[in-house]
């Protein structure tokens, strides 16, 4: 199975580990991520303004490219996924936006959100299946107590992202179980890490991160995993005494044994 793949800017720079191990693991699991040709930044923030068209365009181009290839579009970065999926929904449901975008791009046939957008985790859960993933694990991470950190953007708003319950998510915990480790459920796993305030108010960001770390540690977590580059940056850089944080793809690759192969 081949999916179109939108890595996003951060995954080519600071968040390389999310990208590299995601792709390597995909091969090990029998699916291929085909990077879109000439993709552009997703826009990084979903535009709240209804009349904002320009920042939606790059997402639409990515969506259309996947559609033309006849493939589903997979993303890894929480922020990219958030923006692309919501823009796709706008194209499905908002006639004004659809119309204006189509005219701006000079489309013969308007794009109406036909492409399916999947997060890498959804591919693991719904296409590969966590049970099948479990069977492909060669280095089960037995005994490791891992806390899932969801952040805000991966699952919210639930009505649009629609792949897990944002208040009581389970997808990362199920993933942790599949790679042989023990998931630690802690209350602040879906609280905002404060990443967006880190320039304006480092103290506030630190306060958020410390609360998350303290809660995770109290519940027995020894390390955290996330799907969001901004969260990872913030959780590592702004923690007073933090737990180690990794991308979920790093642990996936470790469990599948692809990390050693590439060393």
């Amino acid at each position, binding site marked *: 199975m081949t999916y179109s793949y939108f890595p996003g800017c951060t995954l080519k720079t600071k968040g390389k580990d999310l990208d590299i191990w995601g792709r390597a693991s995909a091969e090990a699991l029998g699916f291929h991520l085909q990077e879109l040709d000439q993709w552009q930044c997703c826009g990084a923030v979903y535009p709240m303004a209804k009349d904002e068209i320009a920042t939606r365009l790059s997402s639409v181009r990515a969506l259309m490219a996947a559609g033309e290839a006849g493939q589903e579009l997979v993303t890894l970065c929480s922020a990219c996924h958030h923006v692309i999926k919501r823009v796709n929904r706008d194209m499905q449901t908002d006639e004004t936006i659809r119309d204006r975008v189509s005219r701006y791009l000079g489309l013969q046939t308007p794009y109406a959100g036909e492409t399916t957008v999947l997060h890498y985790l959804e591919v693991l859960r719904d296409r590969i299946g966590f049970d099948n993933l479990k069977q492909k694990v060669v280095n089960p991470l037995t005994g490791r107590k891992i806390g899932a950190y969801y952040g805000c953007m991966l699952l919210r708003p*639930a009505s649009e992202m629609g792949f897990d*319950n944002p*208040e*009581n998510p389970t997808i990362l915990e199920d993933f942790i179980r599949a790679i042989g480790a023990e998931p630690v*459920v802690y*209350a*602040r796993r879906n*609280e905002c890490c404060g990443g967006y305030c880190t320039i304006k108010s480092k103290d506030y960001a630190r306060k958020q991160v410390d609360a998350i770390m*303290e*809660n995770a540690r*109290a*519940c027995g977590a020894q390390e955290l995993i996330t799907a969001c580059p901004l969260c990872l940056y913030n959780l590592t850089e702004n923690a007073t005494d933090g737990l180690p944080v990794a991308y979920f793809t790093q642990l996936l690759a470790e469990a599948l044994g692809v990390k050693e192969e590439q060393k």
Partner: protein
Amino acid sequence: MQRVGVFVCWCGSNIAATVDVEKVAEVLGQEPGVVFSTHYQYMCSQSGQELIQNAIREHSLTGVVVCSCSPRMHENTFRKTCEKAGLNPYMVEIANIREQCSWIHKNKEEATQKAVILGRAAIAKVHLNAPLTAGTSPVKKRALVIGGGIAGIQTALDIADAGFEVDIVEKEPTIGGKMTQIDKTFPTLDCAACILTPKMVDAAQNEKIKIYSYSEVQSVKGFVGNFRVTIKKKARYVDETKCTGCGLCTEKCPQKKVPNAFNLGLDQRRAIYIPFAQAVPKIATIDADYCTMLKTGKCGVCSKVCTAGAIDYKQTDRFIEEEYGAIVVATGFNPIKLDQYDEFAYSQSPDVVTSLEFERLMNAAGPTGGTLLRPSDGTHPKTIVFVQCVGSRCDDSKGKSYCSKICCMYTAKHAMLCREKYPDTDVYVFYIDVRTPGKNFDEFYRRAVEEYGVHYVKGMVGKVVPENGKLKVQASDLLGNRQLHIDADMVVLAAAIEPDKSARPLATMLTASMDTNDFFTEAHPKLRPVESPTAGIFLSGACQGPKDIPETVAQASAAAAKVIGLLAKDSLICNPCTAAPDELMCNGCSSCEKVCPYGAITYIDKEFRGPNRTTLVRRVAQVNPAVCQGCGACTVACPSGAMDLKGFSNKQIMAEVDAICR
């Protein structure tokens, strides 16, 4: 040829606004066999009925067609009308030109045309109608109440008071239901046990009432007036006739680590137990999941200490067959499981409890002897946060779309009692809306706010984080437009209530309908609220919808009144529209017998005259008209077309279809 009269009703403007009634009467008057045709504003009124009766006499009508509302509404009315004028009631046909015509169409011309067609079909059918005579079936003067909570107890007491025998089937070892677990009752704050336990004793001592505790309904056959029910008496491994309820076994049993279901797992009991001191019947029960003797064959302590010799490890489930005239469903409710709501940390901290658990923690007979202590460390909580609507009024698939109705009042009660017993506590209640209609209910809630100083905050709790022995509550205060952070010692969740899980399979057994939430449906939401649409099945208490105690008791007595009305009759008039086989066409295949849901069809070997004075013995179907409900399943299943339904024969239906297609 029949002499048919056609009566077109306006139903005020309900029909007349969309259907040209005058024209319908005129066109139908031209139909073959129609000797009289008219229209009138309200055909069901006294003068409308007189109009029909006069026409029957003056024009010697042999058949009547009323074009009006659904037959479910007034078929019986018009049948009685015609019967009084000397016509057989089954010579009346209703053409539904309201629900199936005027109410669903906008174009008057089209609706009028459709009304004419519907009228024609009814006329075509009435030409083939034959007079039918209804038989009767006897009524078994005994009622069954399924569920022994306050609803079931009240219904049983009222039925017994009227002099009828009544049995209660309760799946738990004791009757009493949820009310036994409640501490105090709103709005008067009298203790639940003080008003409930006398009723439990009354039920047990009443000669007319028989209680099957620790029992379940296994199967239901028959129909109104003649239900045949199999009751499964589950093995409790204690001889009910010998056990004195002394409780010695429950003190000596060495298996001490059994979660106490009566206290919702907040403490532990033994493997042999009596749920609580006032249990009725007060008989010990062995929990087979935990009993060492039953699991490994080694122990037998309870048997040794029992002076009455009541312990019987070899006891098995017993099945009892009983006949009943009426069945009352009183299966009650349960709070929902909170797996989907872990943002409130229910699984993460023992200090996050449901309201029912809180009820046990406040109860003098509860695990803490009525002193409010935190389950985690047994300390006195200083700050308590109540969260309402947990799982109620949800717009997603996680919870229930409905309002659970009782939570606003019991939360006000809890908050008030906390403040009264422990004035040093800070009590918060988070709500979407406070809904307290009911006699003295709103006054009660206002007392909580105004006199007891409970902090009511409009807004919801978003998250509860257990940290350093505290519960950090994040919430929104919508009126103050701010975020709140409260360090609480306990959080109490008002979990939504849902019908008991036993209700769904029971509904299937009873062929009683349910809504999408598994609440039993009433025959009419306003006018027949305690009857199921299935004849002979009545509804009592929260199985029909969320209810508090006063409402439950009112409905329980209402259901009893309906049951008494039924049992007071010696016989019921049967539906004469039953199936009947044409024996000459029947080939004895048994297809009809297999599909009959009521067991009304049997086969006999019957002698027939053959050619040349010979006799043939053939196997043919027989229908018991007292049991047949006229569903028609057999008429469709019969491969040789031998089975027909009186009043709805294949010929009659085809005549209707022909008239519509004409």
